[in-house]
């Protein structure tokens, strides 16, 4: 028998502190779906995804009811589509729309993997594939797209960085409020088993089909910290570890059971603190609970470093296999504490960049002025990729140059994507730097063999 404190603690975490399983993501290999032309390939992709993921939503819903814990999203990630359509890259949007129809039929929330991995060089078929990304995002609802432009091992493909800036601008123009950009992310050191969007794809090193689970619960961590206002930071880190352990154990349970019932291997638990725009579900508020007057002030990077590390340490003990991005996310539009700090000018773009040195990913869900030049977006990505490359971590950029919007305006994305005040970016031009292209060489410490 459990004691009443334990039972009530779990129920309060779920009902009052927003503990949830953020996503059960099924990774599906599409390598067996390559056919002689785009139409046949699109049909094979549709059939394959529908067959593999047929039971994903009902199984996740059943588990949610049995355990009494919400499973917020059900998602699918697939092999980077650029590999599937290499023989007919211009026609890749046919596959994009087939995937979107499959997502719709299955009742899942997002499908990721309209992706290309170009961290060392952009092959010709990949360049042609990348040109289809804006159209693919503009003609689908649930599809997400990503590009890996660099790695600690290979350096940064600056030609791809330049191209991504242009693609972000094009996508913003083609979709209302630029929302297509919320479904497009560029990485350095992308991981192959990430269950979170927009960057989920199913790596070629993965099994045919796999279940990855992303857990969440910033509200639980904040709540736990609120009981120890006088604790020093060593004690606070210990408390975060213990809390992350419990959260991750719930994720591990759901992941293993979902994998068993679906008859596919369990992949990883991604032990991330992923905020939502709901009050009480904010990573920013954890940092403020630690003693910052407002997120974005001096001390924010240190507090985030401690949080990110403690989450990993607690989570690693709780799961047999951890992976994905694992840490604390800092998406501006998806976190009420971040939104409010951005609205009052307390958090700046530069501070966010500093925070990405120690958080789990990167510059995420930031609305920027609609007239930001493509080369500036590329330069933002170059800075972020450099941080990832040199520090051996995943970094990413998901910015939305909202068409017609200026600093001080707000962009509303709705749902989990939230709302974002348009933040200023530096206006000094990077045009010449970005137009140079080439490869930014990998750091010397990448040569470990």
């Amino acid at each position, binding site marked *: 028998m*459990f004691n009443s404190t334990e039972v009530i603690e779990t129920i309060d975490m779920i009902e009052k502190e927003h503990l949830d399983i953020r996503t059960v993501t099924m990774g599906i290999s599409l390598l067996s779906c390559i056919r002689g032309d785009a139409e046949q390939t699109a049909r094979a992709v549709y059939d394959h995804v529908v067959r593999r993921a047929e039971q994903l939503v009902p199984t996740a*819903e059943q588990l949610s009811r049995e355990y*009494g814990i919400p499973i917020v999203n059900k998602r699918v990630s697939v092999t980077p589509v650029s590999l599937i359509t290499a023989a007919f890259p211009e026609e890749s949007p046919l596959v994009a729309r087939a995937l979107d129809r499959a997502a719709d039929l299955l009742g899942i929330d997002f499908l990721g993997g309209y992706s290309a991995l170009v961290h060392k060089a952009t092959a010709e078929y990949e360049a042609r594939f990348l040109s289809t990304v804006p159209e693919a995002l503009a003609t689908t609802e649930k599809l997400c797209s990503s590009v890996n432009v660099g790695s600690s091992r290979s350096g940064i493909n600056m030609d791809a960085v330049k191209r991504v800036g242009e693609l972000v601008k094009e996508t913003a123009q083609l979709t209302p409020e630029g929302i297509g950009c919320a479904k497009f992310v560029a990485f350095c050191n992308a991981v192959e088993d990430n269950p979170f969007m927009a960057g989920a794809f199913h790596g070629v090193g993965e099994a045919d089909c796999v279940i990855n689970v992303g857990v969440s619960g910033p509200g639980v961590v904040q709540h736990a910290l609120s009981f120890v206002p006088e604790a020093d930071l060593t004690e606070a880190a210990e408390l975060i570890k213990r809390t992350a352990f*419990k959260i991750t*154990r719930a994720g591990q349970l759901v992941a293993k059971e979902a994998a068993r019932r679906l008859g596919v291997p369990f992949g990883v638990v991604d032990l991330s603190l992923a905020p939502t725009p709901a009050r009480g579900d904010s990573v920013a508020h954890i940092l403020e609970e630690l003693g910052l007057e407002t997120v974005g002030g001096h001390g924010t990077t240190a507090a985030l470093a401690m949080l990110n590390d403690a989450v990993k340490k607690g989570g690693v003990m709780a799961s047999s296999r951890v992976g994905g991005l694992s840490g604390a996310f800092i998406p501006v539009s998806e976190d009420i504490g971040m939104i409010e700090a951005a609205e009052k000018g307390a958090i700046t773009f530069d501070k966010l960049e500093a925070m990405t040195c120690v958080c789990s990913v990167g510059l995420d869900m930031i609305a920027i002025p609609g007239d930001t030049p493509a080369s500036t977006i590329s330069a933002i990505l170059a800075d972020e990729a450099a941080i990832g490359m040199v520090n051996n971590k995943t970094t990413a950029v998901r910015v939305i140059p909202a068409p017609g919007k200026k600093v001080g305006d707000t962009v509303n994305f709705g749902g989990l994507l939230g709302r974002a005040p348009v933040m200023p970016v530096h206006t000094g031009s990077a045009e010449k730097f970005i137009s140079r292209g080439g490869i930014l060489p990998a750091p010397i410490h990448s040569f470990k063999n």
Partner: protein
Amino acid sequence: MKAVVTVTGTDRKGIIAQVSSFLCAKNINILDISQTILGDQFAMIMMVDASECTEDLASVAAAAAEMGRDIGMSVRVQHEDIFNAMHRV
């Protein structure tokens, strides 16, 4: 298979009777009960054995929540593993 039943809300007469009858009708056996009243707040935790219940746990949980609404209480039925996972190493 064991499950944990929790009942919370404002205290009134007949809560245990209602919940026990519901469980009995589903062929679920009560193994342990702990109950407290704090002010006018009622909180009860039951460990139950649902191995002879013919319905799946998800539908029992849904029916229990509905029965709870009828009597003005929050009633949850959850597989014990969620508590095992979070509180037992």
